[in-house]
Each structure stands twice: as C-alpha cells, then as structure tokens.
C-alpha cells in the first residue's frame, strides 16, 4: 500500500512536471511565431500553402462531421422534447448546444485529429531527418519558415472551420428534426431565433474556437519539433500530441465556459 501510494505520488509528480513543461514549450512556440511575424519573417508562400493544405483539405472532414453532429443533437434531445411535447424548443436546444458547446469542441477535436496530427507528423519527420538543423545551417530561421506559417494557418482553419461547422450542423439538425421528429424547418428556425439565443452564444463558441486553435497549433508544433528516434518516434510524437491536445481542448473548454459567464 505504501509502495503503491509512493508510485502514485511519483506518477502524479511526473505528470505535473510534464504538464508544466508542455505548457512552457507551447508558450515558446507561440511567442517565437509572434516574434517571427512581427519581424516580418513569416514566409507568405508557406503560409498560403499551409492554408490550402491544412485548411481547405479539412473542409470535407469538418462538413461531414458537422452534419452528423447536428443530427446527433436532435437525436439526443428527442426523448426529452417528446416527453414534454416541447418540439418548438428543438431549435433552441440544438442551437444552444451546437453554438456554445458541441460545435466548437467536436470541430476542434476533428481538426486536432486531422490537421494537428498532420502538422506533428510533418514537423516530426523534418526533425528526425535533421532537416530543421539543415534549415538553420542555411541561415533560414525555422521559426519564420516552419513554425509561424503553420501556427497561423491552424488558428485560422480552426476559427473558420468552426463557423462552417456551426452553419452545417444547424442545417443537419433542422433536417434531422424534420425527418425524425417531424418538426417543420420554420418551427426550428423560430426556436432558434425566438430570443433565448443571442449572438453572444455564437461569439462564445468562436472564443472557444480561437482558444482551441491556439492550443492545437502550439501543441502539435511542439510535439512535432520534439520528436526523436526515427520514424517510430514520429508515430509516438503524433500519438502523444493528439492525446494531449484533446486534454488541452477540454481544459480550455472549461476555462472559457467558466470565465465568460453570461447573465
């Protein structure tokens, strides 16, 4: 028992040290991206290609996720609504969930899965094959050439992707409401706009998306640049990066929810 609790304490301590280290590394990634941009060293052609590859490339994933997320929200609230006969509240319920919680979180998770791990894999490959050091040898600053374009591209992708997914998820929810609960789209729209939801709810979701974008960008970059040990090391870095990004997304979700209390 003593040995077990000792091991538990050691594990907790190691976890805490790891967490602080991870936050520090991510802050360094973000600050080096900001510094490189302020110095005007952010490579614009890299930024454009990162936006196309990471941003446009993840639109299909985002859209297909959002349709089903909208449907899922309706399926989830269906038993509750039909119990009280409150179908006119469907638009409000689905809209509330999609705009404030589920839309940003699920989009963030999907972008972390696709864009974040892609970023980790690319940067990790460059790191373990010592191409990052090669850049330094050529007097090209990796912060301006590799880090800053990717960080900005991922943040923009997350925010824009969340807007897209909110719209698509609301359409998906309206469609699922029509087919599953026979709620007319006009009723759905009325529930959405009847005044219980405001633009503040959408802004709340966007604030979350911004926070998630920063977390995804910095943590995937940090894990990629920290990869070591050949191709298997890249795989390990991707796995560890995805997991810790997911934890950070939920931590940021709690933080934003609690700090931006609307009354």
């Amino acid at each position: 028992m003593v040995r077990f609790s000792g091991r538990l304490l050691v594990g907790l301590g190691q976890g805490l040290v790891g967490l602080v280290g991870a936050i520090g590394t991510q802050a360094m990634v973000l600050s080096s991206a900001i510094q490189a941009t302020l110095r005007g060293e952010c490579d614009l052609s890299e930024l454009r290609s990162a936006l196309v590859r990471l941003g446009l490339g993840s639109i299909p994933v985002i859209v297909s996720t959002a349709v089903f997320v909208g449907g899922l929200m309706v399926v989830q609230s269906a038993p509750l609504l039909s119990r009280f006969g409150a179908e006119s509240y469907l638009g409000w319920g689905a809209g509330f969930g999609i705009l404030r919680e589920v839309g940003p979180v699920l989009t963030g998770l999907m972008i972390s899965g696709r864009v974040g791990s892609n970023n980790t894999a690319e940067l990790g490959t460059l790191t373990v094959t010592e191409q990052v050091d090669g850049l330094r040898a050529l007097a090209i600053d990796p912060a301006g050439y590799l880090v800053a374009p990717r960080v900005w591209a991922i943040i923009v992708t997350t925010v824009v992707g969340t807007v897209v997914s909110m719209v698509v998820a609301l359409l998906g929810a309206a469609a699922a409401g029509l087919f599953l609960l026979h709620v007319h789209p006009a009723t759905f729209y009325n529930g959405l706009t009847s005044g219980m939801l405001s633009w503040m709810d959408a802004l709340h979701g966007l604030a979350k998306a911004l926070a998630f974008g920063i977390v995804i960008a910095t943590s995937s970059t940090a894990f990629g640049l920290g990869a070591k040990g050949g191709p298997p090391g890249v795989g390990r870095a991707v796995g560890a990066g995805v997991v810790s990004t997911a934890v950070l997304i939920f931590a940021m979700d709690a933080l934003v929810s609690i700090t931006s209390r609307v009354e």
Partner: protein
Amino acid sequence: MTSRRSSGGPGGTSAGGSGSSLGPDEPEGASSRRSLRGSDFALALSTVQDGDVQPMPGFVLPHDESRASLMVTVRATLSALSHTEGSAVVAQAYEIGVRSLPFLCLVLAFVGGIIVYQAGIQAMRIVPDTSGIGPGYIELLVRDLAANLTGLMLATRVGASIAAELGSMKVTDQLDAMRLCQTDPVAHLVAPRFLACFLVTPIVTIIAGACALASGTAVGAVAFDIRPQNFLDPRFVTVGAVVTGMAKSVAFGLAIPLVSAHAGLYTRIGSQGVGDATTRAVVGSSIAVIVLGFFIGAILHVLLGGA
C-alpha cells in the same frame, strides 16, 4: 494478382492450380520494390503442401492499399480470432483499458462539469428551477454522452497508438519478418487488440461515465446549490436509454480497432508514413464513432419509440 487473392481467401483451402499463375501474373513495374515478401513464401508453402496447411489470415492480406479494403482486414481479423492467445488479449486490455482510464476520466469529468454548468445557466435564464437538471443530465449521460465521448476519446488515444505501433512495425519490415517466421501478424497483433478493445470499451465507458456523474454532481452542488440527493435522481433513465448507450459503446469498441489497425497495416513505406497512418486512424475512427453514434441513436429512437 487477383487469382492469388481469391486462391487464399481467409479460411479457404488453397487450390492447387493457383501456384502456376503466380509468376507470370506479377506486374512488371512494381517488381522492383516488392520482390519477395513473406506472403509469397507462405503462399508457396501452402501450395506445396496442398491443402494440409490453411493459409493464416495475415498472410493473405493484399500488400498495397489499392487492392485492400477495410472489409478485407475485417474478414482477416475475424477469421484470425480463433488463433488468438489469451495472454496477448489480457496485455492489450491492460494497455487499452487501464492505461487509457486516467485520460478518459479526466476528459469526461471536465465535460460533465461543463455541461451541468451550461445547463444550469440556461435553466436559470428561463425558469429558476434546477430540479430537472440532475435527472436530465443522468439520462443524457446514460443514453449518449458517456458512450459517445468515451468512444471519441478512445478513437484518439487507442486509434493513434494502434496505428503508430503497427505502422512503425510495418515501415521497419517487422510484419514481413513475422510472416517469414510463420507467425501471422493479424492473429498476433490485430486480433488481440480487436478483442481487447471490444471487451474493454463498455467497461471503461461505465467507469468514465461515473466520473462525469461525480463531477456533474459536484458542479451542481457548488455552482447552483443542488443537493446531491436531489441531483442523483435517475427517474428519466429508461431501459431504452441503457440499451442505446450500451449498443453504442459495443459498436465503438468494434469499429475503433478495426479502422485503426487497417490504417496501421497499410502504412506507406517512408518517413511520412507512420504519421500519415496515425492521422488516418484518428480521423477515420472519430468519424466512425460520430456516424455510428448518429445511426444507432436514430434507429433505436425509431425502434423503441422514445421509450
């Protein structure tokens, strides 16, 4: 190549005639990279002994992804189940279940707290009555939230690790080395992970759901002064809700290892390959969880009539 695959389908006996079509069937251009592989030796062995040896499932997987589909991997995995060792399943169950638990519990506890908090704010906006929050939250948790979120998080954690492990074995040619040693990679690597994930997912769903329940109760008590005995009121939980939640978690436990193992088995050779496979595993199994969750929820809602 097509005759090669059909001759050694999983569980099927290899026909004697297939050996003759092996050599001339080989495509010219691809021969530089895939000269001789483990599956060729295995096929040669099984044709030599002509029906005595049943080709094991891992040997008959097609090598390049254009010819491989998820269904081939699924069939191979299912027919490899009888060759699986129990100790490997236990080890994987520890790896997948126990080692994921801290992560799962942390995430579910966060989400549970947030949802109760948001629901409380909304309830205060309309009617200052918090008595419905607890029962409503418990029903949501049992029916959807525990299964869906655990599924998503397992897709991230387990999907990434399965694809990274199998992928790095693939790019370092360890899968072919296993085939050369008459060891079936599907039976030894994929099937234990599949069985373990299938067995463990419902259990970790329940444990993580309990964490979400505890944190929701705590948030309700601290933020909205709901007494725990009023909050923990399962009056809305029906048999249908329990069935829906369990059906989802079983389906996720089946889908996640298969999608991820498929991505890992078909990792492209090269330094980008492992990262790519991990990405595909995480995205594929997350989408599988969301799509399956929607369809199971919708179908059971229609079948059970909202009961």
